[in-house]
């Protein structure tokens, strides 16, 4: 990984709310075309950090540069080169997926064919469905499709797989890897360590508003083992999730 190629750089980011500090002096860089994971418990400051980079929230202090633009001065330019999937977001009521895609194309000021965007996330069969009528996995795939409309350089995914069944989760991993392979940088938050291990090139652990570790998953695991850590139980070559996938089939399912 070429370390000079940072597309996002965060320096000493601080976010204070009235009576508590959500983010206390975080610094990290995200490299071009990697999948970067922000890991940590709820309330550690992951979402706050993401939303500040996405220019949705004001920071208290610190410096953030996204693809050469500062969040302070060029928020609107940053918005045009990023795609954002929020942890909780709604879509305009009473519209079907194609109409929502048209709306977002207008909002980003780009010309895209709504059906092509839906095909990217395998939702072409749901073109006339309302967002509300989608399953959890379909909703997340649709959300990701809306982040791709402006052919962004970076997409931010905030807990995209929370609440999904194992198939839907794996479908989403495939989709995220595809997006990265097409040249987009991905920043993702998650609670699932297996997901981070599978997907992420590098991960940062966030705890109480600070980064307590940042490295590739492999290095982090090796460091722990080198320090003399041993699992209490020997790991088998498969786990229960593998059994679940094996029994219920790995292919796209209608309801995921």
């Amino acid at each position: 990984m070429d370390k000079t190629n940072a597309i996002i750089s965060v320096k000493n980011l601080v976010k204070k709310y009235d009576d508590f500090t959500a983010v206390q002096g975080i610094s990290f860089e995200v490299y071009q075309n990697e999948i970067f994971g922000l890991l940590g418990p709820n309330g550690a400051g992951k979402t706050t950090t993401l939303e500040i980079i996405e220019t949705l929230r004001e920071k208290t202090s610190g410096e953030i540069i996204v693809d050469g633009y500062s969040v302070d001065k060029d928020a609107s330019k940053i918005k045009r080169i990023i795609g954002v999937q929020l942890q909780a977001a709604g879509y305009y009521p009473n519209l079907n997926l194609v109409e929502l895609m048209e709306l977002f194309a207008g909002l980003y000021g780009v010309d895209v064919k709504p059906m092509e965007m839906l095909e990217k996330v395998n939702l072409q069969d749901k073109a006339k469905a309302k967002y509300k009528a989608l399953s959890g996995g379909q909703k997340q795939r649709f959300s990701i499709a809306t982040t791709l409309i402006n052919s962004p350089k970076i997409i931010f995914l905030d807990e995209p797989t929370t609440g999904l069944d194992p198939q839907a989760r794996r479908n989403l991993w495939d989709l995220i890897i595809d997006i990265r392979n097409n040249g987009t940088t991905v920043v993702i938050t998650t609670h699932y360590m297996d997901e981070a291990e599978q997907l992420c090139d590098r991960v940062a652990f966030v705890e109480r508003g600070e980064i307590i570790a940042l490295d590739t998953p492999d290095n982090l695991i090796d460091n722990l083992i080198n320090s003399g850590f041993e699992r209490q139980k020997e790991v088998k070559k498969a786990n229960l999730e593998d059994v679940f996938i094996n029994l219920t089939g790995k292919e796209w399912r209608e309801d995921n």
Partner: protein
Amino acid sequence: MSKPYNNTKATLALAKASFRSIMRSPSAVVFTLAFPLIFILVFGFLGGGGVKVDLAIAPGSDLQNPIINALEQINVIHIIEDKEADEIKTELEKGHVAAVINVQKNATGTPAYLANVQYTSASIDKGSILKSVLTNLMYTLNSKDIKPTIAQLNESTVQGRIYRTIDFILPGQLGFSLLSTGVFGTAFVFFSLRQTLVIKRFFATPVSRASIVFGEGIARIGFALCGAVFIILIGHFFFHFTLIHGVVTVLNMLLLAIIGLVVFMGFGFIVSGIAKSESTIPPISNIITLPQFLLSGTFFSIDAFPSWLQPISRALPLTYLNDAMRKVAFEGAGLWDVKHQILIMAIWGIGVYIVAVKVFKWE
């Protein structure tokens, strides 16, 4: 970064999405179209007839005589035959029938007929109308062959424009439709877009806040104008609603509708800002719309209100919209002729938007 960001495109995309959404929302369609149309239908059918006086003919009365024949020719009189004496008596007591008439040939010669009329105290006003109709009738019948010795009365009526109930009711209903679309629609849309984080997702795109407000505004105005045209056309073609200068009058009414709607949408922005939850929107909106519904001359002319109430009526923006609409539609006034009404709406608009800017919340 190939080409500059296009705010107009974003605004129009939003307007289109919002318009589609409104068209599929049952409550918007009901408030904008169904309610006003129901009132217009009811008053349209009610208003046609004018006063009718029911006059029963007593059993045993002679039917083939000049008096009954002449009464049948009079529009105001509605003759009821073939009723039993008992039945007529109860109807009289209830005031359903204004009077009963019994005409008999005079056996003694002159006059040729004797007409006995019995009125009821339960329907005095209609009785008086009947009395004057009968007096008039008797005079005409009795003096048919006599040359006037003192003076002859020559009557004629000026052919004026017929002012129907619909000419009063329709502008009022139109105004109320605009008021409820403006206040309820705007309040609900912005509250729910904020609550369901649709606006937050919008903010992650390069769209400007002005585009969001204008896009929504265009959609709502477009929808309300479609409703207004529909209401005006139904009124015109089914109930003879008067449009003095035809299309020009309709266009003037639509311009007034836009002015009114912009003011009312300001109220909607305020409600969406101060409402704490979805369920507090209707009561707050009703505080704004109901007094105007009742006091702004939607159903009755405000001249009919007690004098202490009239200043309140004359302070409300809907009063001036209704007033201007009626002047434009029935009297054929141009927009310049109703500048006074427009000015007062504009003053309301400025006041409302000053408050709206202060209380409106984006997140």
